[in-house]
């Protein structure tokens, strides 16, 4: 039999580092050269680089092959289900990519071209506000966490305006790590509060924490257990009575799109993750986009610039305001993502938007129903677009959440989010989204069942998983211990497993 190292030969093979392909003189690219070259002796020699910039010297063919072959070591949404919980890995429509490509040659200071862009941004703002039941918005947040920070700064500013110096932000234990981190950067003190035994925050719990230092509650709804925060209206009332704000992390909006609106729940401020709910691709880590929406009383604090109407149907940017928190980005946020989002919203229309939450919830519950026979489900409360399993039953045979994830890779499926939320031990958090075909849901459920069976019959094989993947199980501890972060460090570190191939 052939060995594991053979497995990646066709069509994938271990790809050498660019630095290993580098050889002087191979790059013969002709660059645009419209101008006669000046001597540039006005620039001090001590500041000029006497050497060439230190970059690999490779041919175009090698560039193309290198990155193409690398791409093939990745799993994308066009491969199949990508059930990362709270990440909303839905299909990224090709038409939205195509349309966003049309803004590429525009400079934001080309005011004439920007007229059309601002009109589109205004329409997007209005649509997002309508969908969320909020009054106004800013589109400049570059990702969810950037939106959170912006939102918390808005709240801080509003408090300052009121002359209040509240510093506590309450955050349920199911929250994403960005929530407390964003609070800290905004100058708040995040305090973790327990979500109840039923998986949602109870009004009675929050009562215990409310005092005059509480600036806000930061909550995700539905939360990362996929459970709707059923007491949210009551909680909002308690907060408001206490002079505190309700901040909503909209990362899980997909569950309730067109079905329920954060604004109606009492949210004062919230952000969206357009790269989740609104089908913009994740790009292997970004760019995302994190618009922030507010109720009327927080409008003065929105970051700059503001898009304001001048004449009918024409907009300009307003750059000064003494109330605003200020500028949060040097350009226009992740503008191309905003274009994709409007194209997506218009493509769907009002009914299509509502269908998203319906089918996202339907699909998640299908898988949950199937898997509840083989896996431990820690909460009995009904869930919406995602749900959490644990490895409790498999642990009996020594098979862990990590093993289950790696086994899935071997079956050609991207694993769910694992070990999150922290409130569940060894969580496996599954979100299929509305764009998974029924056949694919079945395939996933079948494979999970197979894994559950294998965990009983042959638990010993899990340690070697994933079997069939471009690399075997990756040693993350080794990485952290050696910290090889560049080619150069790889070269100089004798211990490094840097094979030129």
């Amino acid at each position: 039999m052939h060995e594991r190292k053979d497995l990646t030969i066709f069509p994938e093979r271990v790809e050498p580092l660019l630095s290993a392909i580098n050889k002087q003189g191979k790059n013969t690219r002709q660059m645009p050269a419209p101008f006669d070259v000046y001597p540039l002796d006005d620039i001090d020699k001590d500041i000029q680089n006497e050497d060439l910039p230190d970059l690999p010297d490779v041919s175009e063919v090698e560039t193309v092959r290198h990155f193409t072959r690398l791409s093939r070591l990745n799993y994308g949404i066009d491969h199949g289900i990508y059930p990362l919980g709270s990440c909303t890995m839905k299909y990224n429509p090709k038409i939205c990519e195509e349309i966003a490509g049309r803004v590429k040659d525009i400079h934001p200071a080309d005011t004439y071209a920007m007229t059309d862009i601002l009109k589109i941004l205004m329409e997007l703002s209005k649509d997002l506000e309508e969908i969320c039941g909020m009054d106004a918005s800013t589109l400049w947040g570059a990702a969810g966490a950037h939106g959170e920070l912006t939102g918390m700064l808005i709240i801080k500013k509003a408090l300052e305006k009121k002359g209040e110096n509240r510093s506590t932000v309450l955050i349920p234990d199911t929250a994403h790590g960005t929530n407390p981190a964003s609070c800290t950067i905004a100058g708040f003190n995040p305090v973790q509060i327990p979500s109840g035994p039923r998986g949602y925050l109870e009004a009675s719990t929050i009562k215990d924490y409310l005092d005059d230092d509480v600036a806000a509650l930061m909550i995700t709804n539905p939360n990362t257990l996929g459970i709707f925060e059923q007491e949210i209206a009551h909680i909002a009332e308690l907060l408001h009575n206490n002079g505190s704000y309700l901040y909503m992390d909209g990362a899980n909006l997909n569950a309730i799109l067109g079905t329920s609106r954060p604004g109606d729940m009492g949210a004062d401020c919230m952000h969206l993750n357009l790269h989740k709910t609104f089908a913009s691709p994740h790009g292997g880590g970004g760019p995302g986009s994190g618009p922030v929406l507010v109720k009327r009383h927080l409008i003065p604090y929105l970051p700059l610039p503001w898009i304001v109407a001048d004449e009918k149907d024409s907009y300009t940017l307003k750059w000064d305001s003494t109330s605003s928190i200020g500028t949060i980005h040097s350009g226009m946020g992740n503008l191309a993502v905003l274009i994709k989002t409007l194209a997506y919203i218009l493509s769907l229309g009002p009914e299509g938007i509502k269908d998203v939450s319906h089918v996202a919830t339907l699909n998640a519950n299908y898988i949950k129903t199937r898997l509840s026979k083989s896996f431990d489900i820690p909460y009995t409360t009904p869930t919406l677009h995602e749900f959490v399993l644990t490895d409790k039953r498999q642990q009996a045979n020594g098979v862990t959440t990590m093993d289950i994830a790696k086994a899935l890779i071997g079956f050609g499926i991207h694993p769910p989010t694992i070990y999150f939320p922290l409130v569940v031990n060894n969580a496996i958090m599954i979100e299929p989204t509305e764009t998974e075909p029924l056949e694919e849901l079945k395939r996933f459920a079948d494979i999970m069942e197979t894994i559950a069976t294998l965990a009983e019959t042959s638990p010993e094989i899990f340690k070697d998983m994933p079997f069939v993947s471009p690399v075997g199980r990756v040693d993350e501890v080794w990485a952290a211990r050696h910290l090889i972060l560049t080619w150069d460090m790889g070269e100089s570190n004798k211990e490094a497993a840097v094979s030129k191939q």
Partner: protein
Amino acid sequence: MSFIPLSREERKEILDAIGVEDEDELFETIPPHLRYKESLNIQGPLDEETLRARFQFRPHKISFLGGGIYNHHIPAVVDAIASRQEFYTAYTPYQPEISQGTLQAIFEYQSMMASLTKMYASNASMYDGATALAEATLMAISAKGLKRVVITRATNPAYRKVINTYLQFNRSVEILEVPFNIISGQVDLDALNDMVDSDTALFIQQPNFFGIIEPLDKIAQTAAKAGFWGIVITEMVSLGLLKPPGAFGPDVVVGDAQSFGNPQNAGGPLLGVLCTTKASIRRMPGRIVGLTRDSSGKKAFCLTLATREQHIRRGKATSNICSNQGLCALRAAIYLSAVGPRGLKKIAAQCASGARYLMKLMKEKGIDVIFNGPVFNEFVVRMEDARIKALEEAGLVPGIRIENLYPEIPGGQLLTVTEMNTKKDVECMKERI
């Protein structure tokens, strides 16, 4: 048009499998008064052709715009590769076995940024240059408990604003600006010297917002006194010509690498860069990819140093950043691989030469060039509103108005030239003036 792949029958099939009557029942945990019963007031659904017709844009053909976002040549290979679904639809590479493509590409981006800047390491990207700078100030403050952030006034105003936004509620830190010399456009070295001490975090943009090349060799001597200092680069193409900033010994090099293979995109996505020293690596914000090995000892990559990050450290993380600008970093990596060392140098020389050519023609036309310091590919002239308007009406965008950003430069207009301008563009500007 929706992207739901289930037929009505299949939806029914699922309802049956779950044991639920209708879809509304799925939402029974949502209190009735919180359920939205109306029809959303948004347009659509639209078909693809109607969408295509609705998104039409008309950029100017000839323009001299820069100021932090640049129009550079992007080789066709960049789009061809970055548009592969394997790259652009993937999530953050938390599961390394199935994400080696993204991981190795980002590792190579890190490596190239580190080589270009001659810094120890680069992170996997930040939102943009301004937030990268803001995060660097946070790094400085948390590292050494510094009390003052000193930044050159000739640093991109948007960057300075973002620092202000990030630090506005931090009462223990003061933000100060170092003036520029009104003749040369370079930093006022004496003032700088007075403002910097070991309690200071210092940041200097190179080339500065006016396109002027700062005397970094001289500045470095003063900067060495600072508790922490950084070089800010908004036009990374300048690295094709100038000495790597790492040579001057800063703690960080931050800025924006949109110039590397990323289009202007009407203002974003951009590509925040943050490179640092070995000493500061554990205080760095953002993700970083490390080389490691797999179970059979083969080379492999994974995210590392996660203990700095929010998903582990939560409220105590070095930063709140999670999603970054991964695809933009990938584009930069492809770009740098495609243009190579000679290509980058040539582009830089073209930019610098084009700017000099335009400057020459402007001077011939009697236009006042404001500073006499050496420029890279931008420079400031004095221009009246009427002339700008006339040029715009002639179908040409003559740079960015900066007099509102710098009241001390009345009529200030920032002109930028890149290799995407042609000789004809430049001459056309002269003719139409």
